[in-house]
């Protein structure tokens, strides 16, 4: 027992150091976001315990974000965009996967390969020609412009297909024998069994959307449609000296994914494990 503890002590020390590298900046941001601005500047240098520990706590930064900087609207936009992306993405992805698993048609495997190919295409490569297309559709500076181009997602199709392949085919067969339409089989038989993969896919889509920056930056111009990552970027340019508010904005942008991921961590990892190893 003691021997094993001694041999694993260096591992613990390395782990502790790494944990601090990840967590300390976040802790510093969290604490600083509750301090008055002048206090942050006053104690920054030279370093004392007061640099890291507040003598006074205040909601000032958060209040100002919501009253002065329009962060309420920004958060609402981001939630709306994320929620729509999840609903639309799940529907399109699961339906396509359903067709790939249960229907026979010519060119199926070639088409599926194409779907896989699309999820290897990084968004940055297509963002500029995509702008021209979305502009022609008249969707610049609309919610549709942010949401619709990302709805069809090869990764989601892939995740659902993996899951459908593991469902017993007899379930579908017997439902069809009973005269259920394909729509009914999809909605009443197959999808209710898909809770784990639905949660995984929803999380992947929502977090991807929450953290997306380049496309919303390109597709929107006005404050009305601003999402959180674009708001953060603008904040650095416009109010770069309001450190307490910057820390507060960063905390807001981290806290939502954290709240979702803490209880649902294993679903996210499941989704990731499926993409990484089975491909």
């Amino acid at each position: 027992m003691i021997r094993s503890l001694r041999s694993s002590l260096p591992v613990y020390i390395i782990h502790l150091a790494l944990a601090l590298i990840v967590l300390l900046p976040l802790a510093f941001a969290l604490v600083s976001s509750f301090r008055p601005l002048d206090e942050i500047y006053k104690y920054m240098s030279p370093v004392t315990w007061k640099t890291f520990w507040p003598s006074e706590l205040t909601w000032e930064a958060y209040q100002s974000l919501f009253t002065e900087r329009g962060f309420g609207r920004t958060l609402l936009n981001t939630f709306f965009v994320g929620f729509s992306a999840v609903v639309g993405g799940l529907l399109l992805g699961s339906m396509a996967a359903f067709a790939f698993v249960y229907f026979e048609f010519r060119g199926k495997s070639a088409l599926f390969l194409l779907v896989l190919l699309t999820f290897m295409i990084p968004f940055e490569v297509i963002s500029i020609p995509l702008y021209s297309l979305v502009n022609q559709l008249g969707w610049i500076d609309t919610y549709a412009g942010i949401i619709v181009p990302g709805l069809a997602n090869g990764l989601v199709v892939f995740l659902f297909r993996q899951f459908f392949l593991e469902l017993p085919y007899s379930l579908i067969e017997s439902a069809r024998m009973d005269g259920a339409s394909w729509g009914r089989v999809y909605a009443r038989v197959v999808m209710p069994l898909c809770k784990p993969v639905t949660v995984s896919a929803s999380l992947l889509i929502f977090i991807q959307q929450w953290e997306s920056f380049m496309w919303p930056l390109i597709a929107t111009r006005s404050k009305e449609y601003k999402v959180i990552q674009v708001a953060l970027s603008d904040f650095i340019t416009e109010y770069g000296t309001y450190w307490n508010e910057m820390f507060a904005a960063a905390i807001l942008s981290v806290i939502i994914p954290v709240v979702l991921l803490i209880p649902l961590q294993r679903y996210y990892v499941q989704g990731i494990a499926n993409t990484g190893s089975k491909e």
Partner: protein
Amino acid sequence: MRSKKMLGPLLLFLLPALTGLFLFKLYPIGNGILQSLYTTSFLTGGQSFVGFQNYITLFQDPVFWNSLKVTLLFNIIINPLQVVLAFLLALLLNARIKRIAWFRSIHFVPVAISVPTACMLWNIMLSPEQGVVNSILAAFGLPEQPFLGSSTQALGSIIAIASWKGVGYWALFLLAGLQEVPASLMEASSLDGAGRWRQLIHIIYPMMKRPLTFIVVSITTANFLLFSPMYILTKGGPENSTNVLMLESFNSAFLYSDLGRSSAIVVILLMLTLTAVAVQFKWLKASH
């Protein structure tokens, strides 16, 4: 008969997703390649075919060559760095020690941190005048550093920030792979007297080929196309030292309204990325 009856449901289920993928993923790639052969007239907004003129102009432009140099330098450093760190982290997170689940959760946190958020935090902490990192350096009697404000340190600072956010995320994929290496294999080999290092080379590495290939390729594409830290933190400066091709392409399109130039840069960047990925595939296959 059967196929006729199936056609309705088939189209209903498949068409929405396929339309989306074709329209918003595949068509823009083709269109981008096409755009790189055209130039948009400033006055009329009409387009005229110019062949490879956009590329020829690029190859005569020192700004492009500098951008290419910065992109290659950035990637030659950051890609191996992130792969090695992610692999080491995954090995550490796979250690059979008590409370390992806590440490795993901690390194899960970067998933929740977006690149712009990471930029925002480190932008404040690395501030040349009053940043906390400089205060800490000063407390240890070390000279204060300009970080993002200097042409020699900006790229390095961005590499550090991107890796702070990225390594934990990539390690997740490798950890999932490591957990599929059978424990019995490891035990048998250590009974046979194989040391840690030999286990790593002869058992873990071959079994990890698939997730390793996946993250090597993903890391490479992500970094070749990385845009937001440069856009948010440095706008390509100081003195163009962080002006990667992706940013130059973005600026060509949205700052100078030169879609032809912008598309040509993206096509070149895509070629570079594909070449890098092809070399990696070959190398990862051959090394075993």
